[in-house]
């Protein structure tokens, strides 16, 4: 192995891949069979970058050569940068050796488009196939599907990969047209549609035949870039909701645009990354997926933007004061989940614990409820509760004033939820 050459390629091709934020390695069920190497069922973050993001997979491009010219992408054709390409074997060796040392959960392989979609996709599939068939590798493999690749290759990809993703890139078709003139939204939607149907089909098959092969067991995901085009949060979340509902997506990732290129269609180079907005979008996404909120309750015509000062659950609560206060010792789980300051775990603990005895403030605190927010919205076993007739806005001001410094810190946290 030529260490120097590989190091250089790795630097270039990891650097070019890092703007794809998804790094999840969970949701698969692949087991280690026949004493092979690895399994893919844990979703472990093996390290964290200095910006606090999870490092779970070896995330690289096969090559950063590309025939397209998407404005937001460092690998675009007309950008003057160093280009490199891995061989199939090099990617396989890196993956295996990193995996054996417990650096990673697996591989996330994407690529610039060289020649055409199928030519590129075929190589991505070859890496996955080699890992699975020659190295008995059962770790996680996420392949990026190249828009426009043939169904045949997509099907093969699904047989070796745990997850497949097609990035929508821009929240709306208009945004895409503006920044990625070579791309066509339908080319992204077609493979998603194909995969959705194939996954359903294979699941049915698996029910009938236990030995039927796994097909993309961790499903498909997508990514949209936030802040490169002027879409509102309502447009972003509605689009996410549409894809969750119609394509059974496992995850939608929101990636705050990092200004890397000067282009008059894009935000200026000194624009800061919209990290708070990105965090709020993730919180809203969780509300839709785990807390039983409809997208319209979070953003709508009257409220097209998420409030950057407060999390979207608190935002919903202060707009819906008529729903409160909630009696912690009586309300059903669905309602408790809607109380600001109560997370999924705490909500379930409350419902278990109150069967034994009614809960007081102290006990709620111990269970993990953030009382500084929750106390305006609940009553419990105590005569003390918020008696003032506060408006939603009063509450927002109180909470912000009380936790000013702490709050600003928290907003920096990507996935610090509620």
């Amino acid at each position: 192995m030529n260490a120097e050459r590989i190091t250089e390629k790795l630097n270039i091709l990891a650097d070019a891949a890092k703007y794809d934020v998804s790094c999840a390695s969970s949701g698969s069920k692949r087991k280690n069979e026949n004493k092979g190497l690895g399994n893919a069922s844990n979703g472990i973050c093996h390290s964290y970058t200095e910006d606090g993001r999870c490092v779970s997979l070896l995330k690289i491009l096969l090559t950063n050569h590309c025939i397209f010219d998407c404005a937001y992408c460092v690998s675009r054709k007309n950008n003057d940068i160093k280009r490199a390409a891995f061989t199939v074997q090099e990617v396989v060796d890196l993956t295996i050796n990193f995996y054996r040392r417990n650096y990673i959960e697996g591989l996330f392989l994407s690529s610039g488009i060289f020649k055409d979609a199928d030519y590129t996709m075929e190589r991505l599939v070859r890496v996955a196939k080699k890992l699975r068939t020659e190295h008995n590798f059962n770790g996680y493999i996420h392949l990026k599907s190249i828009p426009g690749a043939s169904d045949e290759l997509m099907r093969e990809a699904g047989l070796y990969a745990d997850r497949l993703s097609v990035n929508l890139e821009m929240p709306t078709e208009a945004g895409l047209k503006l920044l990625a003139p070579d791309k066509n939204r339908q080319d992204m939607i077609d493979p998603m549609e194909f995969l959705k149907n194939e996954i359903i089909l294979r699941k049915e098959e698996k029910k009938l035949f236990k030995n039927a092969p796994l097909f993309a067991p961790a499903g498909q995901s997508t990514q949209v870039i936030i802040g490169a085009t002027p879409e509102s949060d309502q447009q972003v979340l509605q689009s996410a909701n549409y894809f969750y509902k119609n394509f059974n997506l496992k995850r939608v990732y929101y990636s705050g645009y990092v200004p890397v290129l000067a282009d008059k269609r894009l935000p200026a180079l000194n624009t800061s990354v919209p990290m708070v907005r990105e965090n709020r979008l993730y919180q809203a996404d969780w509300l839709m997926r785990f807390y039983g909120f409809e997208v319209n309750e979070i953003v709508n015509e009257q409220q097209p933007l998420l409030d950057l000062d407060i999390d979207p659950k608190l935002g919903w609560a202060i707009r819906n004061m008529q729903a409160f206060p909630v009696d912690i010792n009586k309300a059903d789980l669905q309602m408790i989940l809607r109380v600001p300051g109560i997370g999924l775990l705490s909500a379930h603990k409350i419902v278990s614990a109150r069967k034994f005895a009614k809960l007081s403030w102290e006990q709620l605190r111990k269970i993990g409820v953030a009382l500084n927010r929750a106390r305006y919205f609940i009553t419990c076993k105590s005569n003390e509760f918020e008696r003032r007739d506060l408006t939603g806005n009063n509450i927002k001001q109180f909470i912000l004033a009380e936790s000013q410094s702490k709050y600003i810190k928290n907003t920096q946290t990507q996935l610090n939820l509620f």
Partner: protein
Amino acid sequence: MYTLVYDGTFEGLLTAVFEIYDRKLFHVKLIKGEWLSSAMFEEVVQIITDENRATRVLRGLRKKLSSASIQRLYIAHMAEMENEESAIVGFIRYVFDSDINVEEDYGNKYVMRLSEILKMVRREKHRMEAFIRFQKLKDETFYAAVEPDFNVLPLLIRHFKNRYADQKWIIYDIKRKYGIHYNLHDTQYISLDFSEVNKHSDVISAYTEDETIYQHLWKNYFTSVNIAARKNTKLHLRHIPKRYWRHLTEKI
């Protein structure tokens, strides 16, 4: 207030519970340690581990708790957290003093404390699964040194055995001076004698040829994936507290 001194084993702890009920010692504190005959406190009781009594207590617990809860109790104790024995004994007593299964009564301070202990143990286990870095030695064994906050090595066996079924490995807890060795078939507890040699250079001299190259590649990768425009040191440190850095290839 009685102070009960026991030998640190789970059986010892269960024996202590037996004594508490048998001798009606209701205000007690349990500590691990050696029996000092010239005890300074008058009311110190030595617990002599008794398998019979321990089994009777365990049987009693089985009637009142799910088996998952008993396992949790065992893990909480095995973690060897300092001064948590009283919480564990408190939990057991609450279980015995209640008519129904109280394992989900999070309003009770002992039930809640046990759940917190378990959360800490699980987090440490999870961190080990994430932060262990193997180094490949000449004899094809992958070696990792760790210093977990709590005693979690036994909890790691299943994960690593499932994952690295086709390579030999050793995970060694240098704080507690024992390790697990997997030889492609089974795992065994081992202890290594590092006293004679400087252990770190010793490990390095045993590297396979490409070990340094892969460490170097990994460090490079780690630097390449960082997005400087998003730097957030506080969050970084919360995810990887500094005490873990010593054994993280990318952080050395």
